[in-house]
Protein backbone atom coordinates (compact mmCIF):
# COMPACT_ATOMS: atom_id res chain seq x y z
CA UNK A 1 0.00 0.00 0.00
CA UNK A 2 1.33 3.48 -0.80
CA UNK A 3 2.71 5.33 2.20
CA UNK A 4 1.81 8.97 2.66
CA UNK A 5 3.53 11.23 5.16
CA UNK A 6 1.29 13.88 6.71
CA UNK A 7 3.03 16.69 8.56
CA UNK A 8 0.96 18.74 10.98
CA UNK A 9 1.54 22.46 11.22
CA UNK A 10 3.42 21.96 14.49
CA UNK A 11 5.82 19.59 12.74
CA UNK A 12 4.38 16.32 14.02
CA UNK A 13 4.69 13.63 11.36
CA UNK A 14 2.36 10.73 10.62
CA UNK A 15 3.28 8.06 8.13
CA UNK A 16 0.16 6.28 7.00
CA UNK A 17 -0.51 3.48 4.55
CA UNK A 18 -3.37 4.58 2.39
CA UNK A 19 -5.16 2.18 0.02
CA UNK A 20 -5.02 3.04 -3.66
CA UNK A 21 -8.19 4.73 -4.78
CA UNK A 22 -8.71 6.65 -1.57
CA UNK A 23 -8.04 10.36 -1.58
CA UNK A 24 -5.23 11.85 0.47
CA UNK A 25 -7.97 13.54 2.52
CA UNK A 26 -9.60 10.18 3.29
CA UNK A 27 -6.25 8.78 4.37
CA UNK A 28 -6.09 11.48 7.02
CA UNK A 29 -9.71 11.63 8.11
CA UNK A 30 -10.28 7.89 8.31
CA UNK A 31 -7.15 7.59 10.45
CA UNK A 32 -8.32 10.44 12.68
CA UNK A 33 -5.33 12.66 11.95
CA UNK A 34 -5.83 16.22 13.17
CA UNK A 35 -5.42 19.15 10.79
CA UNK A 36 -7.77 18.24 7.95
CA UNK A 37 -11.45 19.01 8.50
CA UNK A 38 -12.98 18.03 5.13
CA UNK A 39 -16.34 19.57 5.96
CA UNK A 40 -17.85 18.79 2.55
CA UNK A 41 -16.77 15.17 2.62
CA UNK A 42 -14.62 15.41 -0.50
CA UNK A 43 -16.89 17.29 -2.89
CA UNK A 44 -14.33 20.02 -3.60
CA UNK A 45 -16.76 22.49 -2.08
CA UNK A 46 -15.28 23.70 1.21
CA UNK A 47 -11.47 23.96 0.99
CA UNK A 48 -11.05 22.62 4.53
CA UNK A 49 -8.77 19.83 3.33
CA UNK A 50 -6.01 22.20 2.22
CA UNK A 51 -2.44 20.80 2.14
CA UNK A 52 0.91 21.70 0.61
CA UNK A 53 2.69 19.34 -1.77
CA UNK A 54 6.20 20.77 -1.68
CA UNK A 55 8.15 18.18 -3.69
CA UNK A 56 7.86 19.15 -7.38
CA UNK A 57 8.55 15.55 -8.45
CA UNK A 58 5.41 14.41 -6.65
CA UNK A 59 3.42 17.48 -7.62
CA UNK A 60 4.08 16.55 -11.26
CA UNK A 61 2.54 13.11 -10.71
CA UNK A 62 -0.73 14.58 -9.47
CA UNK A 63 -3.27 15.60 -12.12
CA UNK A 64 -3.56 19.38 -12.41
CA UNK A 65 -6.20 21.30 -10.52
CA UNK A 66 -9.67 21.46 -11.96
CA UNK A 67 -11.34 24.85 -12.26
CA UNK A 68 -13.38 24.05 -9.20
CA UNK A 69 -10.29 23.26 -7.14
CA UNK A 70 -8.61 26.48 -8.32
CA UNK A 71 -11.68 28.46 -7.36
CA UNK A 72 -12.06 26.92 -3.93
CA UNK A 73 -8.35 27.36 -3.19
CA UNK A 74 -8.63 30.92 -4.31
CA UNK A 75 -10.72 31.63 -1.20
CA UNK A 76 -8.58 29.66 1.27
CA UNK A 77 -6.13 31.48 3.55
CA UNK A 78 -2.36 31.04 3.34
CA UNK A 79 -2.43 29.62 -0.14
CA UNK A 80 0.94 28.97 -1.76
CA UNK A 81 1.85 27.76 -5.24
CA UNK A 82 2.14 24.25 -3.78
CA UNK A 83 -1.36 24.29 -2.27
CA UNK A 84 -3.80 21.52 -3.14
CA UNK A 85 -7.10 20.24 -1.86
CA UNK A 86 -6.30 16.81 -0.50
CA UNK A 87 -9.73 15.40 -1.39
CA UNK A 88 -8.79 15.92 -5.02
CA UNK A 89 -5.58 13.87 -4.82
CA UNK A 90 -6.25 10.25 -5.53
CA UNK A 91 -3.75 7.83 -4.04
CA UNK A 92 -1.93 5.70 -6.63
CA UNK A 93 1.20 3.53 -6.62
CA UNK A 94 3.19 6.45 -8.04
CA UNK A 95 2.35 8.50 -4.99
CA UNK A 96 4.06 6.09 -2.63
CA UNK A 97 6.24 8.30 -0.40
CA UNK A 98 4.23 11.48 -0.95
CA UNK A 99 4.68 14.10 1.75
CA UNK A 100 1.92 16.64 2.47
CA UNK A 101 2.14 19.51 4.91
CA UNK A 102 -0.89 20.97 6.62
CA UNK A 103 -1.64 24.66 7.05
CA UNK A 104 -2.06 26.26 10.46
CA UNK A 105 -5.82 25.93 10.30
CA UNK A 106 -8.54 25.06 7.84
CA UNK A 107 -11.04 27.76 6.95
Amino acid sequence: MPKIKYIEHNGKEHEIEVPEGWSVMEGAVKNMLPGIDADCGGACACATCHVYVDDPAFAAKIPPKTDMEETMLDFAPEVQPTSRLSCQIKVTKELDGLVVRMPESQH
Partner: protein
Amino acid sequence: MNIAVKPDMKSARDAAYALPLAELNPAQGILFQTDTMWPYFERLRKEDPVHYTADSEFGPYWSITKYNDIMAVDTNHQVFSSDFTYGGITIGGGQANFEPLPMFIAMDPPRHDIQRKVVTPVVSPANLQVLGPIIRERAGKILDDLPIGEPFDWVDKVSIELTTMTLATLFDFPFADRRKLTYWSDVVTAVPGHGLIDTFEQKMAVFQEYHAYFTNLWNERVNATETKGDLISMLAHNPATRDMSPREYFGNVVLLTVGGNDTTRNTITGSVLALNQNPDQYQKLRENPSLIPSMVSETIRWQTPLAHMRRTATQDFEFQGKQIKKGDKVVMWYVSGNRDDEVIERPNDYIVDRENPRRHISFGFGIHRCVGNRLAELQLQIIWEEIFKRFPVIEQVAEPKRTYSTFVKGYEHLHVVIPKRV
Protein backbone atom coordinates in the same frame (compact mmCIF):
# COMPACT_ATOMS: atom_id res chain seq x y z
CA MET B 1 -51.83 35.75 19.65
CA ASN B 2 -49.31 34.31 22.01
CA ILE B 3 -46.79 32.65 19.75
CA ALA B 4 -44.33 31.76 22.44
CA VAL B 5 -46.05 28.44 23.05
CA LYS B 6 -44.75 24.96 22.68
CA PRO B 7 -45.11 23.86 19.06
CA ASP B 8 -48.00 21.50 18.47
CA MET B 9 -46.18 18.99 16.33
CA LYS B 10 -49.04 16.53 16.12
CA SER B 11 -51.45 18.90 14.39
CA ALA B 12 -48.60 20.32 12.30
CA ARG B 13 -47.83 16.83 11.05
CA ASP B 14 -51.47 16.10 10.32
CA ALA B 15 -51.76 19.36 8.40
CA ALA B 16 -48.59 18.76 6.40
CA TYR B 17 -49.63 15.26 5.38
CA ALA B 18 -53.27 16.14 4.66
CA LEU B 19 -52.42 18.57 1.87
CA PRO B 20 -52.21 17.45 -1.75
CA LEU B 21 -48.48 17.33 -2.51
CA ALA B 22 -48.75 20.00 -5.20
CA GLU B 23 -50.03 22.48 -2.63
CA LEU B 24 -47.20 21.99 -0.18
CA ASN B 25 -45.62 25.37 0.50
CA PRO B 26 -42.98 25.43 3.21
CA ALA B 27 -42.13 29.12 2.64
CA GLN B 28 -44.48 30.54 5.26
CA GLY B 29 -43.15 32.72 8.03
CA ILE B 30 -45.76 31.43 10.43
CA LEU B 31 -44.48 27.85 10.15
CA PHE B 32 -41.04 29.02 11.19
CA GLN B 33 -42.34 31.24 13.95
CA THR B 34 -44.25 28.31 15.45
CA ASP B 35 -41.42 25.85 14.70
CA THR B 36 -43.85 23.61 12.83
CA MET B 37 -42.20 23.54 9.40
CA TRP B 38 -40.43 20.24 10.18
CA PRO B 39 -43.15 17.82 8.94
CA TYR B 40 -43.44 19.73 5.66
CA PHE B 41 -39.78 19.19 4.95
CA GLU B 42 -39.88 15.62 6.22
CA ARG B 43 -42.64 14.87 3.74
CA LEU B 44 -40.86 16.63 0.88
CA ARG B 45 -37.60 14.78 1.50
CA LYS B 46 -39.52 11.52 1.32
CA GLU B 47 -42.07 12.15 -1.39
CA ASP B 48 -40.84 14.99 -3.58
CA PRO B 49 -37.31 16.14 -2.72
CA VAL B 50 -37.16 18.59 -5.64
CA HIS B 51 -40.54 20.21 -5.29
CA TYR B 52 -42.36 22.89 -7.24
CA THR B 53 -44.73 25.23 -5.46
CA ALA B 54 -46.75 27.08 -8.07
CA ASP B 55 -48.32 29.59 -5.76
CA SER B 56 -46.93 31.32 -2.68
CA GLU B 57 -46.61 34.84 -1.33
CA PHE B 58 -43.18 34.82 -3.00
CA GLY B 59 -44.51 33.54 -6.32
CA PRO B 60 -43.62 30.16 -7.79
CA TYR B 61 -40.42 28.49 -6.58
CA TRP B 62 -38.58 25.18 -6.36
CA SER B 63 -37.66 23.62 -3.02
CA ILE B 64 -34.47 21.57 -2.79
CA THR B 65 -34.70 19.60 0.44
CA LYS B 66 -32.05 16.85 0.46
CA TYR B 67 -28.46 17.37 1.56
CA ASN B 68 -26.75 16.09 -1.57
CA ASP B 69 -29.11 17.90 -3.92
CA ILE B 70 -28.47 21.15 -2.05
CA MET B 71 -24.74 20.54 -2.38
CA ALA B 72 -25.18 19.97 -6.13
CA VAL B 73 -27.08 23.23 -6.59
CA ASP B 74 -24.80 25.22 -4.28
CA THR B 75 -21.69 24.15 -6.19
CA ASN B 76 -23.15 24.75 -9.64
CA HIS B 77 -23.01 28.52 -9.74
CA GLN B 78 -22.98 28.56 -13.53
CA VAL B 79 -26.53 27.23 -13.71
CA PHE B 80 -27.79 28.51 -10.36
CA SER B 81 -26.98 32.19 -10.11
CA SER B 82 -26.86 34.31 -6.99
CA ASP B 83 -26.90 37.56 -8.89
CA PHE B 84 -28.88 40.40 -7.35
CA THR B 85 -30.23 41.43 -10.75
CA TYR B 86 -32.19 38.16 -10.77
CA GLY B 87 -33.34 38.64 -7.20
CA GLY B 88 -30.30 37.62 -5.16
CA ILE B 89 -30.11 35.05 -2.44
CA THR B 90 -33.39 35.12 -0.55
CA ILE B 91 -36.79 33.85 -1.58
CA GLY B 92 -38.25 37.35 -1.24
CA GLY B 93 -35.54 39.06 -3.28
CA GLY B 94 -36.78 40.59 -6.52
CA GLN B 95 -40.39 40.85 -5.35
CA ALA B 96 -42.31 43.94 -6.36
CA ASN B 97 -41.13 47.00 -4.40
CA PHE B 98 -38.01 45.25 -3.19
CA GLU B 99 -35.04 45.84 -5.42
CA PRO B 100 -32.17 43.73 -4.13
CA LEU B 101 -28.99 45.59 -3.26
CA PRO B 102 -25.73 44.71 -4.94
CA MET B 103 -23.49 42.83 -2.46
CA PHE B 104 -20.91 40.17 -3.06
CA ILE B 105 -22.99 37.28 -1.75
CA ALA B 106 -25.53 38.22 -4.42
CA MET B 107 -23.06 38.22 -7.30
CA ASP B 108 -21.51 35.60 -9.53
CA PRO B 109 -17.82 35.34 -10.47
CA PRO B 110 -15.74 37.26 -11.27
CA ARG B 111 -17.21 40.25 -9.43
CA HIS B 112 -18.09 38.13 -6.41
CA ASP B 113 -14.59 36.72 -6.11
CA ILE B 114 -12.88 40.08 -6.24
CA GLN B 115 -15.06 41.71 -3.60
CA ARG B 116 -15.12 38.71 -1.31
CA LYS B 117 -11.34 38.68 -1.24
CA VAL B 118 -11.22 42.28 -0.12
CA VAL B 119 -12.96 41.52 3.17
CA THR B 120 -11.59 38.02 3.81
CA PRO B 121 -8.50 39.20 5.76
CA VAL B 122 -10.73 40.34 8.62
CA VAL B 123 -11.46 36.69 9.42
CA SER B 124 -7.99 35.35 8.58
CA PRO B 125 -6.39 32.94 11.05
CA ALA B 126 -4.02 35.72 12.14
CA ASN B 127 -6.85 38.16 12.81
CA LEU B 128 -8.85 35.55 14.69
CA GLN B 129 -5.89 35.18 17.04
CA VAL B 130 -6.11 38.87 17.76
CA LEU B 131 -9.88 38.79 18.18
CA GLY B 132 -9.97 35.73 20.43
CA PRO B 133 -8.72 37.37 23.64
CA ILE B 134 -10.86 40.47 23.05
CA ILE B 135 -13.99 38.33 22.66
CA ARG B 136 -13.07 36.31 25.73
CA GLU B 137 -12.66 39.36 27.91
CA ARG B 138 -16.00 40.75 26.77
CA ALA B 139 -17.74 37.41 27.21
CA GLY B 140 -16.45 37.20 30.77
CA LYS B 141 -17.68 40.69 31.58
CA ILE B 142 -21.12 40.06 30.05
CA LEU B 143 -21.51 36.85 32.05
CA ASP B 144 -20.26 38.41 35.29
CA ASP B 145 -22.94 41.07 35.03
CA LEU B 146 -25.84 38.64 34.67
CA PRO B 147 -28.39 38.46 37.48
CA ILE B 148 -28.46 35.32 39.61
CA GLY B 149 -31.74 33.71 40.61
CA GLU B 150 -33.99 35.95 38.57
CA PRO B 151 -35.29 35.55 35.00
CA PHE B 152 -33.81 37.58 32.16
CA ASP B 153 -33.74 37.53 28.37
CA TRP B 154 -30.67 35.63 27.21
CA VAL B 155 -31.08 37.00 23.67
CA ASP B 156 -30.76 40.59 24.77
CA LYS B 157 -28.21 40.29 27.55
CA VAL B 158 -25.83 37.75 26.04
CA SER B 159 -26.39 36.72 22.43
CA ILE B 160 -26.95 40.21 21.06
CA GLU B 161 -24.45 41.88 23.34
CA LEU B 162 -21.52 39.64 22.46
CA THR B 163 -22.10 39.41 18.70
CA THR B 164 -22.79 43.12 18.33
CA MET B 165 -19.59 43.99 20.14
CA THR B 166 -17.67 41.73 17.79
CA LEU B 167 -19.32 43.25 14.76
CA ALA B 168 -18.63 46.78 16.02
CA THR B 169 -14.96 45.83 16.30
CA LEU B 170 -14.86 44.44 12.77
CA PHE B 171 -16.32 47.69 11.39
CA ASP B 172 -14.48 49.84 13.92
CA PHE B 173 -17.97 51.20 14.54
CA PRO B 174 -18.54 53.77 17.32
CA PHE B 175 -18.86 51.42 20.26
CA ALA B 176 -21.51 53.32 22.18
CA ASP B 177 -23.79 53.22 19.13
CA ARG B 178 -23.33 49.50 18.56
CA ARG B 179 -26.94 48.53 19.23
CA LYS B 180 -27.83 50.46 16.10
CA LEU B 181 -26.14 47.63 14.22
CA THR B 182 -28.45 45.12 15.87
CA TYR B 183 -31.48 47.23 15.10
CA TRP B 184 -30.53 47.76 11.46
CA SER B 185 -29.72 44.12 11.00
CA ASP B 186 -33.14 43.20 12.37
CA VAL B 187 -34.87 45.74 10.17
CA VAL B 188 -33.12 44.39 7.06
CA THR B 189 -34.55 40.92 7.61
CA ALA B 190 -37.84 41.96 9.23
CA VAL B 191 -41.10 41.17 7.48
CA PRO B 192 -43.29 44.31 7.68
CA GLY B 193 -46.29 43.78 9.92
CA HIS B 194 -44.63 41.15 12.09
CA GLY B 195 -43.16 42.97 15.02
CA LEU B 196 -40.29 45.34 14.48
CA ILE B 197 -41.72 47.43 11.63
CA ASP B 198 -45.19 47.89 10.25
CA THR B 199 -44.76 49.03 6.69
CA PHE B 200 -42.38 48.84 3.83
CA GLU B 201 -42.04 52.65 3.83
CA GLN B 202 -40.94 52.53 7.43
CA LYS B 203 -38.32 49.97 6.51
CA MET B 204 -37.00 52.21 3.76
CA ALA B 205 -36.78 55.15 6.16
CA VAL B 206 -34.61 53.11 8.52
CA PHE B 207 -32.47 52.04 5.56
CA GLN B 208 -31.82 55.70 4.80
CA GLU B 209 -30.61 56.44 8.29
CA TYR B 210 -28.48 53.27 8.22
CA HIS B 211 -27.01 54.20 4.85
CA ALA B 212 -26.28 57.76 5.95
CA TYR B 213 -24.47 56.61 9.08
CA PHE B 214 -22.24 54.30 7.07
CA THR B 215 -21.62 56.94 4.43
CA ASN B 216 -20.14 59.14 7.16
CA LEU B 217 -17.92 56.30 8.27
CA TRP B 218 -16.77 55.72 4.70
CA ASN B 219 -15.90 59.39 4.26
CA GLU B 220 -14.00 59.43 7.51
CA ARG B 221 -12.01 56.29 6.63
CA VAL B 222 -11.37 57.09 2.99
CA ASN B 223 -9.76 60.38 3.99
CA ALA B 224 -7.78 58.97 6.88
CA THR B 225 -4.04 59.21 6.47
CA GLU B 226 -3.35 55.79 7.94
CA THR B 227 -5.34 52.80 6.76
CA LYS B 228 -6.77 50.68 9.53
CA GLY B 229 -7.68 47.02 9.33
CA ASP B 230 -11.43 47.39 9.74
CA LEU B 231 -13.93 46.34 7.10
CA ILE B 232 -14.89 49.84 6.04
CA SER B 233 -11.27 50.91 5.60
CA MET B 234 -10.62 47.73 3.62
CA LEU B 235 -13.45 48.52 1.25
CA ALA B 236 -12.56 52.20 1.05
CA HIS B 237 -8.90 51.67 0.23
CA ASN B 238 -8.75 48.51 -1.84
CA PRO B 239 -8.44 49.33 -5.56
CA ALA B 240 -11.04 46.63 -6.26
CA THR B 241 -13.73 48.30 -4.17
CA ARG B 242 -12.83 51.93 -3.52
CA ASP B 243 -14.74 53.12 -6.60
CA MET B 244 -17.89 51.15 -5.81
CA SER B 245 -21.15 53.01 -6.14
CA PRO B 246 -22.65 54.15 -2.84
CA ARG B 247 -25.43 51.62 -3.35
CA GLU B 248 -22.96 48.79 -3.77
CA TYR B 249 -21.01 49.86 -0.70
CA PHE B 250 -24.24 49.92 1.27
CA GLY B 251 -25.19 46.49 -0.07
CA ASN B 252 -21.93 45.05 1.20
CA VAL B 253 -22.39 46.77 4.55
CA VAL B 254 -25.82 45.15 4.84
CA LEU B 255 -24.36 41.77 3.99
CA LEU B 256 -21.61 42.07 6.59
CA THR B 257 -24.02 43.38 9.21
CA VAL B 258 -26.54 40.59 8.84
CA GLY B 259 -23.95 37.90 8.14
CA GLY B 260 -21.89 38.84 11.18
CA ASN B 261 -24.73 39.35 13.57
CA ASP B 262 -28.00 37.46 13.26
CA THR B 263 -26.47 34.11 12.54
CA THR B 264 -24.08 33.87 15.46
CA ARG B 265 -26.55 35.52 17.80
CA ASN B 266 -29.25 32.98 17.04
CA THR B 267 -26.87 30.08 17.33
CA ILE B 268 -25.74 31.25 20.77
CA THR B 269 -29.38 31.34 21.85
CA GLY B 270 -29.97 28.02 20.12
CA SER B 271 -27.18 26.41 22.12
CA VAL B 272 -28.86 27.28 25.43
CA LEU B 273 -32.18 26.02 24.13
CA ALA B 274 -30.83 22.78 22.67
CA LEU B 275 -28.98 21.93 25.87
CA ASN B 276 -32.10 22.59 27.93
CA GLN B 277 -34.19 20.40 25.68
CA ASN B 278 -31.58 17.66 25.93
CA PRO B 279 -30.52 17.52 29.59
CA ASP B 280 -28.50 14.33 29.05
CA GLN B 281 -26.40 16.16 26.47
CA TYR B 282 -26.01 19.15 28.79
CA GLN B 283 -24.77 16.76 31.47
CA LYS B 284 -22.35 15.10 29.05
CA LEU B 285 -20.95 18.48 28.06
CA ARG B 286 -20.62 19.65 31.65
CA GLU B 287 -18.69 16.53 32.51
CA ASN B 288 -16.46 16.90 29.49
CA PRO B 289 -16.01 20.52 28.35
CA SER B 290 -13.49 19.38 25.74
CA LEU B 291 -16.60 18.53 23.74
CA ILE B 292 -17.36 22.23 23.32
CA PRO B 293 -16.03 22.50 19.73
CA SER B 294 -18.06 19.48 18.73
CA MET B 295 -21.13 20.85 20.53
CA VAL B 296 -20.66 24.13 18.65
CA SER B 297 -20.74 22.41 15.27
CA GLU B 298 -23.69 20.29 16.33
CA THR B 299 -25.56 23.41 17.42
CA ILE B 300 -24.83 25.14 14.11
CA ARG B 301 -26.37 22.14 12.36
CA TRP B 302 -29.29 21.82 14.76
CA GLN B 303 -30.06 25.53 14.65
CA THR B 304 -29.35 26.22 10.95
CA PRO B 305 -29.46 29.98 11.57
CA LEU B 306 -30.20 30.72 7.93
CA ALA B 307 -33.02 28.45 6.84
CA HIS B 308 -32.40 28.84 3.15
CA MET B 309 -30.43 30.40 0.34
CA ARG B 310 -32.03 31.10 -3.00
CA ARG B 311 -30.66 30.86 -6.53
CA THR B 312 -32.09 31.65 -9.97
CA ALA B 313 -31.70 29.25 -12.89
CA THR B 314 -29.75 30.81 -15.76
CA GLN B 315 -30.88 28.15 -18.24
CA ASP B 316 -33.34 25.27 -18.59
CA PHE B 317 -31.92 22.46 -16.53
CA GLU B 318 -33.03 18.95 -15.74
CA PHE B 319 -32.42 18.17 -12.09
CA GLN B 320 -33.40 14.89 -10.40
CA GLY B 321 -35.93 14.26 -13.13
CA LYS B 322 -37.53 17.70 -12.81
CA GLN B 323 -37.49 20.36 -15.50
CA ILE B 324 -36.23 23.57 -13.99
CA LYS B 325 -36.77 26.46 -16.39
CA LYS B 326 -34.56 29.43 -17.05
CA GLY B 327 -35.53 32.19 -14.62
CA ASP B 328 -37.03 29.84 -12.04
CA LYS B 329 -36.44 30.59 -8.39
CA VAL B 330 -34.65 27.70 -6.65
CA VAL B 331 -34.62 27.57 -2.85
CA MET B 332 -32.04 25.41 -1.09
CA TRP B 333 -33.54 24.61 2.29
CA TYR B 334 -30.46 24.20 4.47
CA VAL B 335 -32.79 23.64 7.41
CA SER B 336 -34.06 20.50 5.67
CA GLY B 337 -30.70 19.28 4.35
CA ASN B 338 -29.43 19.29 7.90
CA ARG B 339 -32.16 16.78 8.84
CA ASP B 340 -31.57 14.42 5.92
CA ASP B 341 -31.11 10.95 7.39
CA GLU B 342 -29.39 9.69 4.26
CA VAL B 343 -26.38 11.80 5.18
CA ILE B 344 -26.75 12.53 8.88
CA GLU B 345 -27.46 9.78 11.33
CA ARG B 346 -30.37 10.40 13.73
CA PRO B 347 -30.64 13.92 12.34
CA ASN B 348 -33.42 15.03 14.66
CA ASP B 349 -31.37 14.24 17.72
CA TYR B 350 -29.02 16.75 19.27
CA ILE B 351 -25.81 14.88 20.05
CA VAL B 352 -22.89 16.88 21.41
CA ASP B 353 -20.37 14.13 20.71
CA ARG B 354 -21.64 13.19 17.28
CA GLU B 355 -19.14 11.29 15.15
CA ASN B 356 -18.91 13.80 12.33
CA PRO B 357 -20.26 17.09 13.70
CA ARG B 358 -18.73 19.31 11.02
CA ARG B 359 -20.76 17.54 8.39
CA HIS B 360 -23.61 20.03 8.15
CA ILE B 361 -24.79 22.39 5.48
CA SER B 362 -25.45 25.53 7.53
CA PHE B 363 -22.47 27.40 6.03
CA GLY B 364 -23.37 26.42 2.48
CA PHE B 365 -20.85 24.97 0.06
CA GLY B 366 -18.94 26.19 -2.97
CA ILE B 367 -17.89 29.75 -3.71
CA HIS B 368 -20.46 31.38 -1.43
CA ARG B 369 -19.61 29.28 1.61
CA CYS B 370 -19.80 31.43 4.73
CA VAL B 371 -16.69 33.56 5.00
CA GLY B 372 -17.13 34.15 8.74
CA ASN B 373 -17.63 30.53 9.76
CA ARG B 374 -14.55 30.34 11.98
CA LEU B 375 -15.35 33.59 13.71
CA ALA B 376 -18.84 32.29 14.43
CA GLU B 377 -17.43 29.08 15.88
CA LEU B 378 -14.88 31.00 17.89
CA GLN B 379 -17.53 33.16 19.56
CA LEU B 380 -19.67 30.15 20.42
CA GLN B 381 -16.71 28.27 21.78
CA ILE B 382 -15.49 31.14 23.93
CA ILE B 383 -18.87 31.94 25.43
CA TRP B 384 -19.33 28.30 26.50
CA GLU B 385 -15.83 28.03 27.95
CA GLU B 386 -16.55 31.14 29.98
CA ILE B 387 -20.04 29.95 30.97
CA PHE B 388 -18.64 26.76 32.45
CA LYS B 389 -16.17 28.73 34.55
CA ARG B 390 -19.11 30.53 36.14
CA PHE B 391 -22.45 28.76 36.01
CA PRO B 392 -23.28 25.10 36.57
CA VAL B 393 -26.54 25.52 34.64
CA ILE B 394 -28.60 28.02 32.73
CA GLU B 395 -32.27 27.09 32.93
CA GLN B 396 -34.74 27.96 30.25
CA VAL B 397 -37.91 29.17 32.01
CA ALA B 398 -40.24 29.83 29.06
CA GLU B 399 -40.73 28.90 25.44
CA PRO B 400 -38.61 31.14 23.22
CA LYS B 401 -40.26 33.65 20.93
CA ARG B 402 -39.17 32.70 17.44
CA THR B 403 -38.62 34.97 14.44
CA TYR B 404 -41.32 35.29 11.79
CA SER B 405 -39.10 34.60 8.79
CA THR B 406 -38.40 31.93 6.21
CA PHE B 407 -34.81 33.15 6.03
CA VAL B 408 -33.48 34.05 9.47
CA LYS B 409 -34.18 31.12 11.75
CA GLY B 410 -33.85 32.68 15.14
CA TYR B 411 -35.23 33.97 18.39
CA GLU B 412 -36.49 37.29 19.61
CA HIS B 413 -36.47 36.26 23.26
CA LEU B 414 -35.41 33.35 25.41
CA HIS B 415 -36.02 33.74 29.12
CA VAL B 416 -33.69 31.91 31.44
CA VAL B 417 -32.62 31.79 35.06
CA ILE B 418 -29.17 31.14 36.40
CA PRO B 419 -29.79 29.56 39.82
CA LYS B 420 -26.26 29.96 41.15
CA ARG B 421 -22.61 30.51 40.43
CA VAL B 422 -20.02 27.75 40.39
